[in-house]
């Protein structure tokens, strides 16, 4: 799976997986996932971790890795790509 396909899937996961109040097409690559950006909270974070782990077969071992990986859509795509090529 190439980078743009992963990015599209991540956005779809955010929009439909978390039932966001906006479509995947409106999610920006570099907008923060939590806080003001998409308006997600800690409960969404828990669900998103599980969804990403399940869908992409990657592991998010701790909060530090999570914080980095879930900063923006691009950061999450980077994390998934690097874990999958490992």
């Amino acid at each position: 799976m190439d980078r743009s396909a992963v990015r599209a899937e991540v956005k779809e996961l955010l929009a439909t997986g978390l039932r966001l109040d906006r479509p995947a097409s409106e999610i920006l690559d570099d907008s923060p996932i939590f806080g003001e950006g998409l308006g997600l909270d800690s409960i969404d974070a828990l669900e998103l971790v599980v969804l990403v782990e399940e869908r992409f077969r990657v592991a998010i071992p701790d909060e530090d890795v999570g914080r980095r990986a879930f900063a923006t859509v691009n950061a999450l795509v980077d994390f998934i790509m690097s874990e999958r090529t490992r």
Partner: protein
Amino acid sequence: MPAVAITGLGAVTALGGDVPALAAGLAEGRCGIGPLTLFAHAGRSTLAAQVPEPAAGIARALPRATARRLSRADRFALAAAGEACRSAGLTPELQRAAALYVGATTGGMRESEEVYRRRRAAEERRFRLSRLLGTPLATHAAVVSQALGLFGPRATFSTACSSSALAIGAAAAAVRDGRARIALALGTDQLCRLTYAGFDALQALDVEPCRPFDRERRGLSLGEGAAALVLEDAAHARARGARIRALVLGDATTTDAHHVTAPHPDGAGALRALVAALAAAGVPPEAVDYANAHGSGTRQNDAVEVAVLRAVFGRRLARLPVSSTKSQVGHCLGAAGAVEAVATVIALEQGLLPPTMNLRTPEWPDLDFVSSAGRRAPLAVAVTSSYGFGGHNVTLVLGRAESGR
């Protein structure tokens, strides 16, 4: 002891998304009961008084993640509470000290049912636990106080179909004893599979739109919605120039301790609630101008309720207008007491006797059930009663603002 004024009203019912729509529907004799389309139900009954999705309103004041997870019943509650506070002209400072009392019975049950249905139908691979956050009944009060900035006393009551009548009584008590100068009373409930299937299994649902007090009545029609009332120390309301819409003259609550669903056959508890509420209000039975009945339309309730009214009002009952708002908005369960209190305030304010719809052949022809056309009459004092499964009886005595009490 401070007099308790009602200075704000809000309502979301099958007759419309606000109080003017409810008032118009009551005056026009509209019936909001129609086909159930919210979810599939394979049973006897196919009807409900459904409410259209309310506008976002004060839900916009919530964090986006919280707003996204609101249940329909939360959204009803927010719409009604927002309208009530707006119509009372409450400032953020006044809201800050206000108490909040909520009545509800199923919370976010419908959303929870959806979580299980999706998992069971394999539409989702796992339980979406965040969708269960609206399940606790106290969630309504939490989101309403957060959206409106209410920091005073707060409680949630769940006494079946009298829940929000009890919340109004609690709000009145808080104002009377000085714990709060302003108290918001709120009822909210949404249609869900559990209550719909449950009432249908009990054969408590009429297959036609409910016909309270009719000889052919076969049960109730379930509804949904929310209603809110701002209760306020009357002197405080006058001092800030607020319009007093009506007064809470008295209230009482009693228990049947008899059966999980059936009312006590003699209506002993309901009778004590009505008598005690009138006594608390200092109103003799002959001063009551209108009774907004519980009037669910079940064989048992209506018979017991008429017996209770007869015991208190005697021969005068022939000249006491009685009607059931449930014939227009359905039985809104936890919201019913508040919806009917708002309807009663509208009746007092506008001199309007709301009709009992679908009533063709009254089982008690000597009573004045207000026919489908509704009627105009000056009213000073009205009673509204709510009877919940398990024997939770509440009666409220409301008075017209300028009734001089």
